[in-house]
């Protein structure tokens, strides 16, 4: 029996869905599923019960919140797809600001029919079963998640930093050799270190690495050795990861003094 799935976006750039729609052998992969709702691609199908719901985007409005709750009630498994859904995305950087103040700056005294919010991750509102990281996620990882579910198995998130992939590819280390604040040591792997491969310092778009890994500390210590400031690295990590609850702790650890 085919798995029933639903694909939905709250507030985002729609890149995660676009990536799903761009899967190389999409029709072959789709043989294993019944897509019950996917507004971006189909005008048939409204939110209804599915085995697995894939949701991208941050909760940036009251309507987002209501849609998310409806999806959660009607899904056995909920997967948060992409940086917006997992950490709030770039728009999540505003957390802590007063929405009413920002609204007033932008709309003046105009009243809106809809209620907006500072973008937040899905997990602040509902239980999330799995995270599929990326901005956007890699096709390979999307297919891996879909295939695992289809087999009745479950996907495992990567638990090592971009540095591992960078080294495997033999790229020169941007942090060490070019003195640039490459966030590879603190960012979750899966992109095959694409940006360092293009000589561009990692901006951390896949989100912070959620675990303490034995050797990530050593490369992360390079920030301090290179004379980079804690505030600078923290500000850069916060572009995509401000709402990662262990961010302060991680940055402290990275910059702590040796005994």
């Amino acid at each position, binding site marked *: 029996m085919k798995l029933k799935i639903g694909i939905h976006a709250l507030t985002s750039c729609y890149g995660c869905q676009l990536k799903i729609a761009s899967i190389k*052998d999409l029709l072959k992969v789709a043989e294993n599923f019944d897509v019950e709702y996917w507004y971006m691609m189909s005008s048939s199908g409204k939110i209804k019960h599915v085995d697995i719901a894939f949701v991208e985007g941050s909760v940036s409005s009251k309507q987002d919140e209501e849609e998310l709750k409806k999806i959660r009630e009607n899904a056995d498994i909920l997967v948060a797809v992409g940086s917006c859904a997992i950490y709030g995305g770039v728009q999540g950087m505003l957390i802590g600001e007063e929405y009413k103040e920002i609204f007033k700056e932008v709309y003046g005294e105009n009243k809106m029919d809809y209620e907006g919010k500072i973008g937040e991750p899905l997990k602040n509102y509902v239980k999330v079963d799995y995270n599929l990281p990326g901005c956007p996620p890699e096709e*390979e990882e999307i*297919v891996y998640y879909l*295939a*695992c579910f289809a*087999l009745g*198995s479950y996907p495992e998130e990567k638990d090592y930093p971009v540095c591992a*992939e960078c080294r*495997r590819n033999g790229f020169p280390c941007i942090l060490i050799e070019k003195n640039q604040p490459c966030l590879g040591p603190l960012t979750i792997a899966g992109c095959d270190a694409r940006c360092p491969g293009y000589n561009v310092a990692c901006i951390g778009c896949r989100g912070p690495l959620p675990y303490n890994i034995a050797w990530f500390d050593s490369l992360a210590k390079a920030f301090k050795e290179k004379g980079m400031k804690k505030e600078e690295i923290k500000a850069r990590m916060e572009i995509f990861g401000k709402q990662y609850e262990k961010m302060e702790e991680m940055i402290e650890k990275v910059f702590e003094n040796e005994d």
Partner: protein
Amino acid sequence: MKWLIVFLGSGIAGDDTAGYEIYMKIKNEIKERIAFLGTDLFRLYGIYEGEEKMIIVDAIYGAEDIIHLKNDEIFSIEDRSTGAHFLAAMEALKILKLVMKKFPQEIHLIGIPAKSFEEITYNEETIKKAIKEIKKIIG
């Protein structure tokens, strides 16, 4: 291209480095397409270009000597082998078959005997033997 040879393993963990060692040595000795996939066979999804035949080279815990298995024989070893690494590779193969329109018709597995994650117990001989075995298969 007829053959794709993929190597699994890690760059740093004991016997798990066998795949990487063989990959680096064989690079300049054969002209068939080769790739080092790290510890994740699922990465085949992104690099596969339609080759008819494939060889997977991986460290196998519980093997005494180099083993060579073909097609269905590969799945028979599941019960005998220890080590999550190999089982993960088998799982990946199952998943890949589900989502890839094109897949190699002939798959070989070359298993390098492995004992330890902490230290390297294989030697030059093992590496040479494995390379010889690979060359024999591709003819």
